[in-house]
């Protein structure tokens, strides 16, 4: 049975989005992306290294024609910086689908929701399709949705922490009330975390560090692919009810 994942009217088969940062080299990045089965990858916008022009570039390893590039605003701490970054990304090749991330604190990398909401409004007016990294606060995510975000991406835990989903109840509440896709972005540490996100009903998961910093990133990418599929299927299958006491699995009649 087909289970299509739709963001901003674009259809995808994989519900796993992967980041392309923190890898040893572009070859490893490309191999991990391939193993993950992801059809969307996040990318950052940075200055070209003028002095070392022979350095390899990401586009030579991940073809933007065959995989959806999702430009991000990682490292931006104000609406102004984020808008500048995404406008440049759009100029580079017409990217309208973008990931907005406006941070508020260097230590926790926690999002600044005031600047985030402000930026979302401007970007939507300018014709961008904005997937928004945000706190796991249902009031804030509702505001983002009202501002025109095409996907809500609450954190499970701080970026790069690998702590897993800290507030399952909030993620569930956010999913229940949202019309646009909800994607857990940040905090996943290992495969079971990704499965939990999907079992909670989320539409997708965005993972970078948990794959890139695994001892074997390619194997972890493969694990994440299956973790997301398992979680999604378990959610769709609708799990059994929990009981306080045991319930035998074998019939109790005709015992010898």
């Amino acid at each position, binding site marked *: 049975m087909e289970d299509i994942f739709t963001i901003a009217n674009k259809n995808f088969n994989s519900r796993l989005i992967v980041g392309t940062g*923190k890898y040893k080299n572009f070859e490893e990045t490309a191999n991990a992306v391939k193993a993950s089965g992801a059809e969307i990858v*996040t990318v950052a*916008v940075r200055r070209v290294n*003028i002095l070392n022009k022979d350095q390899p570039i*990401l586009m030579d390893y991940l073809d933007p024609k065959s995989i959806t590039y999702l430009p991000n605003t990682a490292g931006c701490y104000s609406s102004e910086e984020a808008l500048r970054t995404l406008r440049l990304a759009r100029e580079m090749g017409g990217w309208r689908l973008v990931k907005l991330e406006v941070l508020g604190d260097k230590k926790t990398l926690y999002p600044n929701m005031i600047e985030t909401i402000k930026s979302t409004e401007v970007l939507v007016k300018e014709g961008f399709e904005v997937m928004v990294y945000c706190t796991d606060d249902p009031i804030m995510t509702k505001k983002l949705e009202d501002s025109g975000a095409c996907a809500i991406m609450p954190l499970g835990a701080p*970026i790069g922490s690998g702590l897993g989903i800290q507030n399952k109840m909030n993620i569930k509440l956010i999913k229940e009330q949202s019309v646009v896709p909800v994607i857990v972005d940040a905090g996943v540490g290992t495969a079971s975390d990704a499965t939990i996100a999907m079992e909670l009903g989320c539409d997708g998961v965005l993972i970078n*560090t948990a794959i890139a910093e695994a001892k074997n990133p390619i194997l972890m990418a493969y694990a994440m692919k299956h973790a997301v599929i398992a979680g999604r299927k378990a959610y769709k299958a609708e799990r059994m009810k929990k009981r306080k006491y045991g319930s035998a699995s074998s019939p109790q009649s005709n015992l010898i």
Partner: protein
Amino acid sequence: MNNLNVAKIQLNGDSYEINNGTNLSKLLNKLKIQTNKVAIEVNGEIIERNKYQNLILNKDDKVEIVHFIGGG
């Protein structure tokens, strides 16, 4: 030493010397940068690709050339 034929611009945060009258296309050519893989800002304003040829750089212009790199 002042050379009347050259001008200093700020390129990605560093001082960079160009010949007077250099346009953006020429600069990219010299830097061996493929235009379809970058975006450019001059003095804070994004320049559309079809305007590179006509944009002559002036002394003290701030040029930012960016591209995509790995990121989460």
